[in-house]
């Protein structure tokens, strides 16, 4: 259990099925407020499923999900994003044939009451953060490179003003030279007070970024710890670092 601080997200005995296949067996863990937490594990170990369950895209078979003080399992994605959880899904799920600025406006969709002025202000703020996106605001999302696409996906999620950001493989399909930039970005967001729960295949980056790491294996929690401690364990050395 990660020490210190309040709990932002709490999962209790989560069980999820894909059709008749059990994807998540029995998982409980906490995500402390304003930290970066990574979920690691091989393909099919249930990492993405957990994120989808949190954001409401998948129904639970059993278990509870608590966000801050309220129970959110069984709610629709619309309700959950209103609570302040944004999800940058696998392969980003951008709207490929919409412009960058339309994608950003979609990010603010859940804020029904926001006036046009507020939205413009927020868009401007996001553009300051991602200056390249401003240059490309009129181009279609499909024309963006991997790194820019990821920036757009994160920017879109920020438009919803989330307290918790779920990121599914933010570094996938990104040129090695840009990986560091995205890593820095994730760190920055965290420093601005956003809690981050991410799933990543790039082991070294997630060890570098995270405050706490959970490793899943076939739908169950195998091991957890702070990255410094974890990288010394036999288990991690054997299965991930290949030594």
């Amino acid at each position: 259990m990660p020490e210190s601080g309040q709990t932002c997200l709490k999962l209790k005995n989560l069980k999820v099925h894909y059709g008749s296949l059990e994807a998540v067996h029995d998982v409980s863990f906490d995500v402390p407020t304003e930290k970066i937490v990574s979920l690691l594990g091989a393909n099919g170990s249930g990492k993405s499923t957990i994120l989808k369950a949190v954001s409401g895209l998948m129904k639970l078979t059993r278990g509870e999900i608590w966000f801050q003080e309220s129970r959110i399992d069984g709610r629709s994605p619309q309700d959950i994003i209103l609570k302040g959880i944004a999800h940058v899904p696998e392969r980003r799920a951008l709207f490929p044939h919409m412009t960058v600025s339309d994608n950003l406006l979609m990010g603010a969709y859940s804020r029904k009451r926001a006036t046009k002025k507020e939205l413009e202000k927020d868009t401007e703020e996001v553009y300051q953060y991602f200056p390249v996106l401003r240059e490309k605001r009129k181009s279609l999302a499909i024309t963006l490179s991997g790194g820019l696409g990821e920036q757009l996906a994160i920017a879109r999620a920020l438009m919803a003003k989330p307290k918790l950001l779920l990121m599914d493989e933010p570094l996938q399909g990104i040129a090695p030279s840009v990986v560091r930039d995205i890593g820095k970005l994730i760190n920055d967001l965290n420093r601005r007070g956003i809690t981050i729960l991410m799933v990543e295949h790039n082991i070294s980056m997630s060890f570098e970024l995270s405050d706490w790491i959970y490793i899943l294996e076939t739908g169950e929690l195998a091991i957890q710890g702070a990255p410094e401690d974890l990288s010394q364990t036999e288990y991690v050395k054997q299965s991930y670092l290949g030594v």
Partner: protein
Amino acid sequence: MDEPSPKPILEIRNITKNFGGLTALNDVSFDLHPGEILGVIGPNGAGKTTLFDVITGRYRPSGGKVFHKGEDITGLKPHQIVQKGISRSFQLEVLFKNLSVFKHLVMSRHLHTQVGFWGSFFRTPGNRKEEEATEAEALELMRFVGLEVQGDRLGGNLSHGYQKSLGIAMALGPAPEILLLDEPLSALSPKRVTDILDLIRAIRDKGVTVMVIEHNMGALFRICDRVVVLSVGEKIAEGLPEEIKHNQRVIEAYLGGAVRA
């Protein structure tokens, strides 16, 4: 493996595959020697599965050739490749979801039933005998991969680990000389990993040449004789597991250049 390698059973020569503007494989060449277990490793997006797809006829390569015992088999259809004795498993389990495990394996023996159409239409005695033989073979296959208890369950209802075993058994059905396994260890518990590794060894001991794609390097190094490393569509190294482990280029490609361990 210091002795001069025997004549290769499969030669991959300058294979290139483009999808639209994307190059999935670029000028990849290597050999597969009879009786060995060859590991193909590389990070996500290295083109490993595409390589299998090219060898087994699912895709036609944009350039290069594949030779099987000296014969050019580039561009043959999947069923022709299977007839040549090269069969494969799939990474994300491709199964007959509504068929029982037993029926799966009977189906996989398809190529080896001699009965013609009329025999099976009129249920001749010869056909019945043939069918019994096929069923016996299917049972044996089931036992071999450790699925004998699961025989009546539907493919779609199996747990992930059993689906993996069934996938391998399906590939063994046509009695191949060369078996290509696509990430047989992904998402398995350490116990199951050991089981599957033992199974792969047992397959090799039966005289089948095995080529394995894997993401999990540590486990793979426990069984393979040689390793080929792909990264972003190119072969960056080839050699014994010990050499590969310490190859700087491999470590960089694989771990993103920031290993601390």
